[in-house]
């Protein structure tokens, strides 16, 4: 047995080149999904054993180029430069050879070991495009392997070639590079010579590549070069500036533009030699589908239908397993309740841990289904079409067409909605979308509206609730525009988007996609939610020994005894009535007791303490306590109100309504409270997701503070404005 050696293989390629499929084929379910350090670009890797080697396969983000304009490109390039994988497999979509070669020539320039996987050549040839792989391999001095990703063909060959390449001696004579225009080549040689003479030992990148990047005015390379090369580096940079100015005057264009042109010129030459196109009158299925799906008249209705269907499936179909999980959690906590002795630990376990984690794990079915749907939209190619038809509208808020899906999902639940922002390529778009999505009124807020609007606006409740939804949308649009012109300034992400051909999705890839995301949700969210639940529980469970204003237990005892005496002397008929009365009296007392307990818990004290903040917006201390508990999950606002108005557990459905009606709450303060619930800080699960998806503490805190301030100001306007208008 030869000694085992770990070979790192990186997969590079354009988006939609079939890279993910090949990665899935190679690694199967042995994948590890995480994020690239510091950014939210997904990093996938898998460890496999093959032909006596340990292979580490890393899936680089799909990019069209390696110029560092997007995070994906920076991530991909840095991996190639800094981690120096043993082999890079560049997956080339055979039906898109010309554009694919752009990335290929850049990889070639870095001078790493590259292998081409010519993917889906069968499809290309059936469309009339034949590629001479031998010639391509010769011209670029790169081994070429044929693969058909979706039929799992050519994978072993690919691995074999990769191992062979990794074991070969590094080739030093690389003369199959792009040849740029004469003036550019001269400038490159000059810089290259300077680097080799003055800074060679300090800079670990290849000198020609460094020279090219400096001439292209590549910010990242320039910074690193200046860092490493010291004073001679400064001289070289100055010299480069001079050369760039000279080239600008010669070509009347920046060097990097001329060089891009030159690369495509070089590629055009290769294409002419290796690709033959027999013009066949072919039926383009994709275009025929698009005639319908992006049709001027029915494009939108179809889009709306798909979104509607996705929404229905996610939240309605998801409601069944949600119920099962819910009852499972309830069963678990009642089981724990029955076997454990009364103790603080029992309370923590049942109300803190099981209750808290249980309230989050119920989202799992939603997340599974939603990500399945999103994977379906992406893998078929429809997502790009959805962005295509929605872009005009989203662009008004300064967003990309793709932001539409997460924002819409926000009406259901913000957790999967924010996770769905992963489909956005630009980080700014992603953060902006994450910041404004929580204003979409999520389904957990609906019970609050139903109770409050139902109580105070009766017949007009529907209109009030509808207006709240509109207000949420309006605030998110205003916020979007505001952020775009302030915090997240900069040019909108250009809408240079490929519309890939429609493909039949592979179930396996859909399942992997869905499972990856959900696993991440379970694992990472578990920790945060667990801690958060315990904190919230502790705040409402402590202090244990509340000093009650009345001696409830002896009063309960007294009532109990006095009823027992009455029952003892009463006749048969009255006994039953008295028994019911006894139960009612005792439970009344117990409710008062639990209301006082909540009032005096830390949560209640905090609520009372901050209630001056809520006074100007017409919310009393009960309201503020329930809003605080709503941080845990929005629907809890209702149950806390129930506890505080001592109606919890009442059989009378209208108990809370009656209690609210007889309280000091007015129509105006109820409206103000609903507006506040609509806009204020997202729930714990959402905050954890925001933290996770923005990978930034700063943005998370900002989101909390911003939404809460907006909520307060909006409620203030409603309440004080309403008062000025003489409303009640």
């Amino acid at each position, binding site marked *: 047995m030869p000694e085992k050696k770990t070979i790192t293989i990186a997969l590079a390629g354009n988006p939609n080149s079939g890279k993910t499929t090949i990665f899935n084929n190679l690694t199967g379910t042995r994948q590890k999904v995480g994020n690239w350090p510091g950014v939210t670009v997904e990093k996938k890797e898998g460890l496999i054993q093959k032909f006596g080697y340990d292979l580490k396969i890393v899936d680089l983000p799909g990019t069209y180029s390696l110029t560092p304009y997007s995070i994906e490109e920076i991530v991909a390039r840095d991996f190639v430069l800094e981690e120096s994988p043993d082999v890079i497999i560049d997956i080339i979509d055979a039906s898109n050879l*010309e554009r694919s070669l752009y990335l290929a020539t850049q990889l070639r320039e870095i001078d790493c070991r590259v292998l081409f996987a010519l993917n889906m050549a069968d499809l290309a040839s059936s469309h009339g495009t034949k590629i001479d792989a031998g010639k391509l391999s010769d011209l670029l001095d790169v081994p070429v392997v044929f693969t058909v990703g979706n039929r799992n063909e050519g994978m072993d060959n690919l691995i074999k070639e990769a191992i062979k390449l990794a074991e070969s001696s590094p080739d030093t004579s690389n003369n199959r590079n792009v040849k740029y225009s004469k003036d550019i080549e001269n400038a490159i040689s000059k810089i290259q010579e300077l680097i080799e003479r003055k800074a060679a030992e300090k800079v670990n990148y290849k000198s020609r590549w460094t020279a090219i990047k400096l001439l292209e005015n590549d910010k990242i390379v320039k910074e690193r070069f200046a860092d490493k090369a010291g004073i001679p580096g400064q001289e070289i940079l100055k010299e480069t500036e001079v050369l760039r100015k000279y080239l600008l005057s010669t070509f009347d264009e920046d060097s990097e533009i001329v060089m891009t042109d030159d690369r495509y010129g070089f590629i055009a030459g290769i294409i002419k030699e290796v690709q033959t196109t027999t013009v066949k009158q072919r039926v383009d299925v994709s275009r025929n589908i698009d005639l319908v799906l992006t049709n001027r008249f029915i494009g939108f209705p179809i889009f709306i239908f798909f979104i509607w269907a996705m929404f229905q499936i996610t939240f309605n179909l998801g409601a069944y397993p949600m119920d099962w999980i819910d009852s499972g959690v309830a069963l678990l906590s009642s089981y724990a309740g029955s076997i454990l002795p009364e103790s603080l630990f029992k309370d923590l376990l049942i109300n803190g841990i099981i209750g808290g984690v249980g309230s989050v794990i119920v989202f799992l079915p939603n997340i599974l289904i939603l990500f399945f749907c999103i994977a379906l939209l992406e893998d078929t190619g429809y997502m790009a079409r959805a962005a295509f038809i929605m*872009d005009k509208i989203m662009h008004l808020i300064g967003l990309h067409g793709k932001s539409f899906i997460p924002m819409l999902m926000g009406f259901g639940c913000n957790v999967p909605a924010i996770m769905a922002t992963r489909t956005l390529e630009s980080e700014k778009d992603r953060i902006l979308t994450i910041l404004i999505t929580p204003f979409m009124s999520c389904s957990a807020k609906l019970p609050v509206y139903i109770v409050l609007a139902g109580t105070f606006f009766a017949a007009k409740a529907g209109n009030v609730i509808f207006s709240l939804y509109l207000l949420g949308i309006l605030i998110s649009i205003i916020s979007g525009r505001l952020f775009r012109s302030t915090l997240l300034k900069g040019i909108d992400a250009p809408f240079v988007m*490929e519309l890939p051909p429609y493909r039949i999705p592979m179930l396996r890839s859909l399942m992997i996609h869905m499972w990856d995301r959900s696993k991440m949700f379970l694992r990472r969210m578990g920790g945060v939610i667990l801690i958060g639940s315990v904190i919230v529980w502790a705040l409402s469970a402590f202090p244990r020994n509340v000093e009650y204003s009345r001696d409830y237990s002896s009063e309960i005892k007294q009532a109990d005894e006095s009823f027992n005496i009455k029952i003892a002397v009463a006749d048969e008929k009255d006994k039953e009535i008295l028994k019911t009365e006894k139960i009612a009296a005792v439970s009344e007392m117990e409710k008062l007791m639990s209301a006082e307990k909540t009032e005096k818990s830390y949560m209640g004290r905090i609520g009372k303490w901050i209630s001056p903040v809520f006074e100007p917006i017409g919310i009393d201390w009960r309201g503020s306590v329930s809003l605080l508990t709503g941080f845990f999950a929005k629907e809890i606002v209702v149950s806390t109100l129930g506890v505080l108005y001592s109606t919890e557990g009442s059989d009378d459905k209208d108990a809370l309504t009656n209690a609210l009606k007889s309280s000091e709450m007015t129509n105006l303060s109820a409206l103000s409270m609903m507006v506040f619930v609509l806009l204020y800080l997202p729930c714990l699960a959402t905050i954890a997701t925001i933290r996770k998806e923005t990978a930034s503490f700063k943005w998370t805190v900002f989101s909390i503070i911003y939404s809460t301030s907006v909520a307060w100001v909006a409620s203030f306007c409603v309440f004080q404005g309403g008062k000025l208008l003489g409303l009640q």
Partner: protein
Amino acid sequence: MLLSELKEGETGIIVRVGGNGALRRRILEMGIVKGTKIYIDKYAPLKDPLELIVKNYHISLRVEEAAQITVEKVQQQD
């Protein structure tokens, strides 16, 4: 004329890609370079963005972006 002035079903040859910075570079990198044939497949239902066919694949640009690209209209030969 500008790429955004072509109508659905018309073809142009790219004369110059204007604009600046990242966007321009990005457009060029996607293969929309001087001398390339570009076909207007369709406009989105709201007239923006538009779908183009270039180098045998479909790409979408916003109208404002397409307005940075100068083309020469190719007369249809059927």
